[in-house]
């Protein structure tokens, strides 16, 4: 075991996969000499050379489009989009090309590739750097979407993503890059894509979240448990697509109260999909309406107000109180 933060854990996964499999190459803006704007690919060019850690021209569509061609021809590209908010430039290549290649060719071709991108708020970025766009890609058949919340999961999920036979969008919560460290095995390991994690057992209420919001949820729950004799279950979704329905429904049936917390804007978010699924499969177990604590339906706001815009402990606490009032 080594103590690593998330940047180090992701870097370790890339390095380990590149050492084991020479089909794996990294490409993106500033990923080579500079080691990425967050230093996630730091040092990889020195080890693997400019052929395998490629500083590309500044063109998001070309980065993902070229990765599709590489993947179809037997490489395992790991492309970086510098910030998730920039991926709109490459939406065709992501949603209509990478995601559909297997389907449109009747299974004759595929694009096993990873697109990594930092996302999320709370770090005072200029506009369009902080958006959480995971719902767009849950709505895109053919893609897998992974959003880790810890260094351990980040390393294991990225390892799985690189080894996966389908295109995986790997979203890295920017605020957590260096927020904390934990024990991470030095050897390689996989965390299964498509499996949520119950990070805390409970009976009175289920809170589902992912990425950096998980930590806000944990803070809020801790306050409740210290003050009142309550047991709250927390599920870290970890994979957005495909959703781990079993874990979600099992918990919903057990507690009868479900809250979903995400940074992305509320309307049409992943929370809406979860609420619909729970309604379909566990409606008669519910004591309370399913609530969503999410970003407001505005563009991601200016840094001066982002802390109030993002789901915070206060909003989560109010929602818990409301949900417990139903019995």
């Amino acid at each position: 075991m080594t103590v690593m933060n998330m940047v180090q854990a992701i870097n370790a996964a890339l390095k380990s996969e590149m050492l084991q499999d020479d089909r794996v190459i990294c490409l993106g803006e500033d990923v080579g000499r500079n080691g990425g704007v967050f230093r996630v690919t730091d040092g990889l060019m020195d080890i693997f050379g400019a052929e395998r850690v490629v500083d590309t021209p500044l063109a998001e569509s070309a980065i993902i489009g070229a990765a599709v061609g590489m993947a179809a021809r037997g490489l395992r590209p790991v492309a970086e989009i510098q910030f998730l908010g920039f991926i709109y430039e490459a939406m065709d290549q992501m949603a209509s090309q990478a995601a559909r290649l297997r389907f449109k060719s009747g299974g004759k071709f595929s694009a096993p590739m990873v697109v990594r991108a930092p996302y999320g708020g709370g770090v005072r970025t200029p506009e369009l750097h902080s958006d959480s766009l995971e719902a767009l890609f849950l709505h895109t058949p053919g893609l897998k979407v992974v959003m880790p919340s810890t260094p351990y999961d980040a390393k294991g999920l990225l390892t799985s993503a690189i080894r996966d036979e389908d295109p995986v969008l790997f979203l890295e919560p920017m605020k957590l890059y260096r927020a904390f460290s934990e024990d991470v095995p030095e050897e390689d390991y996989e965390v299964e894509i498509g499996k949520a994690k119950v990070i805390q057992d409970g009976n009175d209420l289920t809170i589902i979240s992912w990425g950096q919001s998980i930590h806000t949820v944990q803070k809020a729950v801790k306050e409740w448990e210290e003050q009142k004799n309550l047991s709250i279950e927390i599920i870290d979704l970890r994979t957005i697509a495909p959703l781990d329905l079993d874990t979600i429904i099992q918990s919903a049936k057990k507690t009868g109260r479900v809250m979903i917390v995400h940074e992305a804007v509320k309307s049409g978010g992943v929370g809406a999909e979860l609420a619909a699924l729970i309604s379909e499969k566990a409606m008669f177990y519910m004591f309370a309406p399913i609530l969503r604590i999410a970003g407001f339906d505005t563009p991601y706001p200016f840094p001066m107000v982002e802390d109030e815009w993002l789901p915070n402990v206060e909003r989560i606490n109010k929602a818990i109180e409301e949900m417990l009032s139903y019995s």
Partner: protein
Amino acid sequence: MNWINESCVTVDMFQLLNEGGKLVGEKPDIPDDKLLQLYKQMIFSRVFDERALKLQRQGRIGTYAPFTGQEAAQVGSAAALDKGDWVFPSYREVAVSLVRGVPASQSLLYTMGHHSGSGDPDAHMFPVQIIIASQTLHAVGSAWASKYKKEKQVSVAYLGDGATSEGDFHEALNFAGVNSLPVIFFVQNNQWAISVPLSSQTASKSIAQKGIAYGLTSIQVDGNDVLAVYETMKKAVQLAKEGKPILIEAVTYRQGPHTTADDPTKYRTKEELSAWKQKDPLLRMKHYLIHNHLWNETQEEEETAIAEQKMTEAYQTAIQTPRSGLDDIFQNVYHKKTSNLEEQQNSSKRGEVSV
């Protein structure tokens, strides 16, 4: 001040056969049997196109994008490739696919809407691309993979004049240039992007010159002259394998509609069409072959009959292929079916709503 502009660029269209089928350049070193093969492939392509149009009008196949007028560009370029080279087509490249050895029935099945889709790994043909210019980037990635794996093969993106306005085209040329990739961008400038003429598509006096901005080696070729196209592509393959990415502008004309859903009489004149029919690629090659005593009208009739028969067989194969059902669509979304898809498939089989 030294401004640079269009006048700095000279673009001479490469031609070997003039409109009457007379040799105007140096006689290319192509064996007679190859000349005949090229022509026969052009005949089969034209027969395919004409039959596909009829089948569409009869409601037997779906929307179809005809390529009549572009046979020399497609056959000449595809015939110059090696088996190991990779092709990234748009939706108008049926003649290319036939030369590559993709069964004609596969192209029919595609337009009939069969779930087997398009693309043929054995023929090194990527699936048909609908999004304009998107495939240029896949060709770049493929060329990159070849270079990385040190495999001597080129990747060819086929596109039209309209595609040269897309961002992906420019990003692709730029990536190819920066990384010295073994890739060829083969533009069939057929003068029209649905209803928009080339003059509204670009202010450049040629498409070929667009390569210069990205450090590519470029050429404009008479796309209705199969010999010129073939020779150009041979040379392009050689240069691309040396790490010189290539842009080829083949000047040609789409004699038919954009697709079977389009009516070109709305936007172009009869005079324009008949002027281009004078430059028809099949007529030109036929005159050349007859003049050189390699071909005659009897052979023309025989070959056309053979092509018609092959086409009938292809259609029979297509309609005898089991139709796609709802059950088929769940198979190729992911490598391994997700539990969510499994559930939707099972409930659809039982005729239930998806719960």
